[in-house]
C-alpha cells in the first residue's frame, strides 16, 4: 500500500496531511483541480467540484493528470467509480466551443454531434441558438454570448469561449517600475490572464492584486473600466495607478455617488452601478460610454447580481476578475465561471506568506464575564436585542483598554458594528471615530494621519471592512460584529495582514462576552479562522496581564525605536 499524504473521501473532498514529507509536492499536484476549503493546522481539506475540474481543463490540465495525481498521492485505494466520475466531468468541458466563423460570425461548434443535438433540444438553451450551418455548427447572436455560456454551464456542458475580443479604444499605459518591480507571481498571473483572454486571478489579501490589475492594463494598452466595492477602495486604486503607472491624475476618472467622471480609465463602484431609481438602473450606460478594452472586477466574490446581468452583455470585452477566494456565500460561482471566465491563476498562499508578502497574524479571543446587572438585562432581553446587549456590554471597555495598553507602540484599530458603542469607545480611548456618516474627505484625512503615525488608535465601524489600505495597522481589536459573518472576519483580519516594514507579527483580538450569543457568534468566526490556518488562543480577561505585570505575556512587542 501507498503511504501518501492524501486521503480521498467519498464526498470528493481530499484530506491532505500537512506534516507528511510529500505534502508540498502533493499540494502542487492537486491545487489546479481542487479548491482549498479549510486549512487548519494538521489536515487541510480540498474539494473537487465540477467547476474546479473545468477550471483545471481551461488551464490545460487533462483528466489523466488529475486521476494520476489522485492515485499517486492517495494513501488508500481510490474507488474506481470516483475516478471515472472525475474523468467524465472533465470530458464535458470543451466539447462545445464558441468561435468566430469567417462568414457567419459568432458560432457554437462541437466536436461531438450528440452533445449539440442534446443542447439544441434543451428548453433552456434552444432559444439562444440561431440557424444551423452544418451538422456541427450553430449560429449564435453575439448578444447572447454570455447568457448562452451561463445556460450551457447549467445544463452541464460548459463551452470554451474562443471567440476572441475587441481591442477597444487604444490608450497608452505603461508600468512605471522605478524603485520597485512586479513580483514573479504577479507577472505569472498577468501572463496567465492574458493568454486565457478573460478570467479570474486568485491572490490572497495583501498580495498585491491592484498591481496585477495595473499590469494587465499596461498589457492591454486600452481604455479600462475598473469596478470596485466602494469609494475609498476606488481612491486607493487611483493612488496606486498614479504611483505605479504612466497614468496621470487627469486620465483617471471616478464614477461614484459623489462624482461622475468618465475618463480613459474610469473607476466605478458596484453601488453606483446598481443604484436604481423608479425601478431602473440609472448608470448602465457607463458600460457603453467608452469603447472599453478591458474591464477589471475587484473582489469578484462580492460581485452583485445586477453586475452579472450587465456582464453578460459585455462578452466581447476582456474581463479580469480579482479575488482572494472563489467561494461565494450566495453560491454563484458558476456565474463567475461562465461570465467573467475560468480561474487563470491561483497563487500558492503559503509561498506568498513565506516570501514575506503577508504579515503573520496571531488571533486572540478575550473572554469577558458580564457583571450581574448586565447578565440580568441580557437574560430578560428580547431575542433580537440580545446580541446587541452582549456585544456592547460596558464590561468590555476596561478589557479593551488593557489590550491596547499591551501594544503601546503599534498602530491600532478598534473595529465595531454599533455606533453608540463606537462613540463611547472613541470618548473613553480618546481616539477619532470613523463611521458611515464621516465624510470621505474626513476619512481620507484620518487615514492619512494614521498612516503617518500621527494617530495611534482609530475606532472604525464596518465601513472599514473592505479595501482600505492601512499597511501600518498591526493590532486590530474587534468588539462587535455582524452576527458572526465569516466574510467580515476575513476582511477585518485582512486589515492587519499587510506586510509590516520590519516583518513584525500582527495581532487580531476579539473581545467577547462569556456565555452569551456574542460568544456563540465568536465561535463561528473562530472556526473560520482556524479553518484558514490561523492559530488562535482563548484568554480570560482576568488572565490578560499588561506588559511588565505578573503573568504578563512574554510576547509583548518591544518598542520599535
Amino acid at each position, binding site marked *: 500500500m501507498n503511504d501518501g499524504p492524501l*486521503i480521498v*473521501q467519498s464526498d470528493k473532498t481530499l484530506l491532505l496531511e500537512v506534516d507528511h514529507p510529500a505534502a508540498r509536492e502533493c499540494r502542487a499536484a492537486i491545487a489546479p483541480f481542487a479548491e482549498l476549503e479549510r486549512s*487548519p*493546522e*494538521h489536515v487541510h481539506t480540498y474539494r473537487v467540484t465540477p467547476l474546479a475540474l473545468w477550471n483545471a481543463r481551461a488551464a490545460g490540465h487533462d483528466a489523466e493528470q488529475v486521476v494520476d495525481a489522485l*492515485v499517486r498521492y492517495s494513501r488508500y*485505494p481510490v474507488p474506481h467509480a470516483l475516478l471515472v466520475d472525475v474523468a467524465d466531468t472533465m470530458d464535458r468541458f470543451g466539447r462545445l466551443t464558441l468561435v468566430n466563423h469567417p462568414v457567419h460570425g459568432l458560432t457554437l461548434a462541437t466536436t461531438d454531434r450528440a452533445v449539440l443535438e442534446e443542447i439544441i433540444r434543451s428548453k433552456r438553451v434552444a432559444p439562444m441558438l440561431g440557424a444551423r450551418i452544418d451538422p456541427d455548427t450553430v449560429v449564435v447572436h453575439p448578444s447572447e454570448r454570455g447568457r448562452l455560456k451561463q445556460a450551457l454551464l447549467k445544463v452541464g456542458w460548459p463551452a470554451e469561449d474562443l471567440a476572441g475580443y475587441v481591442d477597444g479604444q487604444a490608450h497608452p499605459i505603461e508600468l512605471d517600475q522605478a524603485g520597485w518591480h512586479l513580483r514573479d507571481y504577479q507577472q505569472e498571473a498577468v501572463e496567465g490572464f492574458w493568454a486565457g483572454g478573460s478570467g479570474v486571478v486568485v491572490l490572497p489579501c495583501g498580495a498585491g492584486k491592484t498591481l496585477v490589475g495595473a499590469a494587465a492594463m499596461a498589457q492591454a494598452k486600452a481604455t479600462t473600466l475598473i469596478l470596485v466595492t466602494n469609494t475609498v477602495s476606488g481612491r486607493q486604486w487611483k493612488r496606486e495607478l498614479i504611483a505605479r503607472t504612466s497614468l496621470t491624475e487627469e486620465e483617471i476618472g471616478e464614477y461614484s455617488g459623489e462624482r461622475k467622471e468618465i475618463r480613459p480609465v474610469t473607476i466605478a463602484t458596484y453601488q453606483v452601478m446598481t443604484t436604481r431609481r423608479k425601478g431602473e438602473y440609472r448608470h448602465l450606460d457607463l458600460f457603453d460610454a467608452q469603447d472599453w478594452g478591458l474591464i477589471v472586477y475587484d473582489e469578484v466574490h462580492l460581485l452583485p447580481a445586477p453586475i452579472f446581468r450587465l456582464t453578460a452583455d459585455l462578452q466581447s470585452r476582456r474581463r479580469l476578475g480579482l479575488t482572494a477566494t472563489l467561494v461565494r456565500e450566495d453560491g454563484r460561482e458558476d456565474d463567475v465561471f461562465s461570465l467573467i471566465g475560468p480561474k487563470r491563476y491561483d497563487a500558492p498562499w503559503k509561498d506568498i506568506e513565506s516570501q514575506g508578502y503577508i504579515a503573520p497574524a496571531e488571533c486572540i479571543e478575550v473572554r469577558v464575564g458580564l457583571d450581574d446587572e448586565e447578565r440580568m438585562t441580557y437574560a430578560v432581553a428580547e431575542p433580537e436585542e440580545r446580541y446587541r446587549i452582549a456585544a456592547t456590554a460596558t464590561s468590555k471597555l476596561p478589557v479593551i483598554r488593557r489590550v491596547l495598553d499591551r501594544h503601546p507602540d503599534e498602530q491600532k484599530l478598534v473595529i465595531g458594528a454599533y455606533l453608540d458603542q463606537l462613540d463611547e469607545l472613541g470618548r473613553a480611548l480618546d481616539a477619532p471615530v470613523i463611521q458611515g456618516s464621516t465624510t470621505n474627505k474626513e476619512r481620507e484625512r484620518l487615514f492619512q494621519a494614521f498612516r503617518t503615525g500621527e494617530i495611534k488608535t482609530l475606532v472604525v465601524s464596518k465601513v472599514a471592512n473592505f479595501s482600505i489600505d492601512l499597511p501600518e495597522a498591526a493590532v486590530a481589536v474587534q468588539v462587535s460584529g455582524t452576527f458572526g459573518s465569516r466574510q467580515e472576519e476575513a476582511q477585518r483580519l485582512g486589515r492587519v495582514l499587510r506586510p509590516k516594514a520590519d516583518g513584525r507579527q500582527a495581532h487580531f483580538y476579539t473581545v467577547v462576552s462569556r456565555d452569551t450569543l456574542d460568544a456563540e457568534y465568536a*465561535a463561528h468566526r473562530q472556526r473560520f479562522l482556524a479553518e484558514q490556518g490561523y492559530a*488562535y488562543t482563548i484568554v480570560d480577561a482576568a488572565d490578560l496581564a499588561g506588559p511588565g505585570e505578573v503573568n504578563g505575556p512574554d510576547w509583548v512587542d518591544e518598542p520599535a525605536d
Partner: protein
Amino acid sequence: MPADRPATLAAWLRTRSDAQLAALLAARPDVARPAPSDVVALASRLAVPVSVDRALDDLDAATLQVLDVVLLAPTDGVPAEDVHAALPGLPADVVDAAVERLTVRALLWGEDVLHAPDQVRRAVRHPAGLGRRAVDLRVTLPADLPAAVGALDPAEREVLERLAGDRPVGHLPETGGPGASPARRLLQAGLLARIDALNVELPREIGLLLRGGLPYGPPRLRPEPAAVERDAAVVDRQAAGAALEVVGRVGELLAVLEEEPAGLLRSGGVAVRDRKRLAKALTVSEADAGWLLELAFAAGLLDVGGPHRDEWLPTRGYDLWREQPLPDRWGALAAGWLESTRLPSLVGSRDMAGKAVNALSPDLVRHTAPAIRRSALAALLDSPPGRGLAPDDLVALLRWRTPRRADRLAPVPDMLAEAGRIGVLVGGVLSSGGRGLLTRGEEGAADGMQGLLPEPVDHVLAQPDLTLVAPGPLVAELADTLAVVADVESSGGATVFRVSESSVRRALDAGWSATDLHDLFTRASRTPVPQALDYLVDDVARQHGRLRVGAIECYVRSDDHGLLSQVLGDRRTAAAELRRLAPGVLVSGLGADEVLTVLRQAGYAPAGESPGGAVLTRPPARPRAAGRRPGPPPSAAGRPLTEAEAEATVREIRAGDAALAARPATPVRQVPGVTTAGTLELLSRAIREGIPVWLGYVDAQGSGSQRVVQPVSLAGGFLQGWDERRHENRTFAVHRITSVALVDEEAPAAGNG
C-alpha cells in the same frame, strides 16, 4: 445399409454404446432420475417437453442453428453432409461439434442421416427464427409471391423485413388514425397471419424469400470480443477502493439504523420515507441507500426485528461483523451479494401496477438470480488476471451461449454494475478478491483483498477548527465512542468528525463527564488537544444539568410551611408517599385522588387544584361518547361504460349467437373431472379430420363456458385451437375441459365417451 438403419429413436438408442448412453444421461440428468426401466421408457422420458426444453436451453447459438437445419428440412432425416452444405458460414469443425453435442443429448438421432424427435420439433417454436408454414397459419399466399412482395411500399416491406429477422411474431400496433397501418394492410393482403388479438406471424415462405441466400440467418459464430486489458495491480487497488467505500457505507447505514430503525411495511420492505432519511443521513442518493440496504440484508447484517417484529434492525451478525478485519468484512458482503436471490437494481422501479418497488420488498426475489450472477462472472474467470470483457461484450457472449435463455440475461448489466460497486469487478476485469470469491467463496474473497485494505487506526488528529480527523478506518471501540461525542462530517478512506456544542451536550447526556471527555481527547488524539476544544467542553459542561426535569403524579402545596412539615411528619399520611421538593411544596408519585383521600382520612382538609392553579369544586363532567361524524353521501351514478367495453360486449354477444347456431340440439352434458382416453380420442379425431368441436371448459378463475373450437394440435396436456367465439388462437388445458362434442354430430359424444 439402409435396411439396418434404426427406424425410431428407441431403436437408435439401442444401437448406442454404453459410454454414449452414459454421456446422454450425464448431459440430461433429469431423464436418469428415477432410472428408466428400458430403452423405450428412456425414449419416452426423453420426449417429456420439460426435459427437452431444459436440454435445448443449455445449447449455444451455433448448435441451435445446426438443429434448425434439420428441423427445417422438408423431409425428416437429413444427411450430415447436407448440414455442412446448408451452413457455409460455419467452420466444419464447429458443425461437427454441434452435431455431436445434439446426438449425445438425443436431440437429434441417427448416424449418417439425422432425425429430429417430434418433441424437439414442437419445442423449437420458430426454427431459425422463421414462422410456421402458410398452410398451418391458415393463410393463402398470393400465387406469385416474389411479385407480390416486390410490389409492396417501403413501410410495408420494412415490417416484413423486421419479422424475417430473429422473431417472426410481432405486435400489431394500435390503430391510430383513419388510414390502415402497414401491418394491417399486409394482413389484408394475406402476407401476414393473425394469431390472436394482438399478434401477427410471418409465414415461413415469405421469411425464406426475404432471406434469400441465407435461409438460416447469418452464421451464429461465437463472438470473439476484444479483451479488456488492465494492470492487475491497478485493478486490485481500485477494487480495494470500492471495497473500502462499500464496507464503510454499510457500516454507517447500520449505525444509523441502530439509532433509529426503519419500519417494516405491511407489504414487506422499507418505506420510501425511511429510504430518504437514510440517504440524507449518509449523504448518498436514494438509489444508493436502497442498494446499501439490500447489500446489508444479503450479507445477513440487517433483518426484521424489534419487540413487535416490525422494524428493520442490525442483526447479531452485525456485532460480530464490525469486529472483524476489513478484508473479512468485505468477504461477507461480497459473498452475501453473490448468493442473494434478490435483484437490488429493481428497487424504485415500477411494477406491473405502476407502483414503485420498495427496498427489501419481497417482490425483488428472483430465485434464478444467484445462478445468473455466478454464470456471468464465471465467464470472466476464464481470462487470466488483468484481462476481462467490457459489459456489453460479456452480455453478447452470454447471449450466444444460451440464446434460448436470453430473457434471463436482462439483469446482467445491472449485476455487473453492482459487482463494480462492490469491488468484485473493475471495468470488466475481475479483481483478486472477485476471483477468490468465485473460486473459494467468502474466505477466498477475504484472502484476495488481504493486504490491499488499510489497517484500522486507533487515533485521531484533533484540529483547532474542532474537527477530529481519523486518518483511516477506526477500530470499532473508538468509532463507537466518537459516534457519541462528535458528528461525522465526511467519510471515506478517512473520517472527519466535528465536535460541536450539541455533540458535547449529547455526550454529557449519555453520562460522560467533562473530565472523561478531556481524557478521551488527550488519549485519542495524536496531535495536542487544541485549546478551543477544551474550552468548548468546559463551556458546555458548565451549563449542563443546571435545570433538572423529573416526573411526578401530584403535588401538595401550602403557604403554611408549618402545616406542610406537620403533614410530612404525620405517620398517618405515610401512605401518600410524600417528599419535600422545595419549601412550600411536597410531591408524590401517587395520583391526586389517592393523596386527597389519604389526607382527608388523616383529618386534613385539602382542596383539589386544577393545572392552572384554581381550586376544583365542581364534580367532573358526566361521561359522553364522541358522536359519529357524518361521512360523504354515497354517490348515486355508476361508472359509465366506455366505448371499448361496449364493443367487447357486443362482440361476445355475436360470438355467443354464432356458437348457439352451431350447437347440437341437446346440451352438452357436463361431466366434471372426466378427461379420459375417450375425450382425447375425440379431440385427436377432430384434429385429424379438421372438424370443429363443441367444448365445455372451466377457466383458471373457475367460471365455466361453452364454445366452438377448431382444434389444431394436442400436446403436453394442452389443446390448441381456433376459438370461434373470441376469433383467436387459444390454448386449453385438457384437464379443464368438461365435455367435448363434434359439432357436426347429431347427439353429443360427451367427455365420458
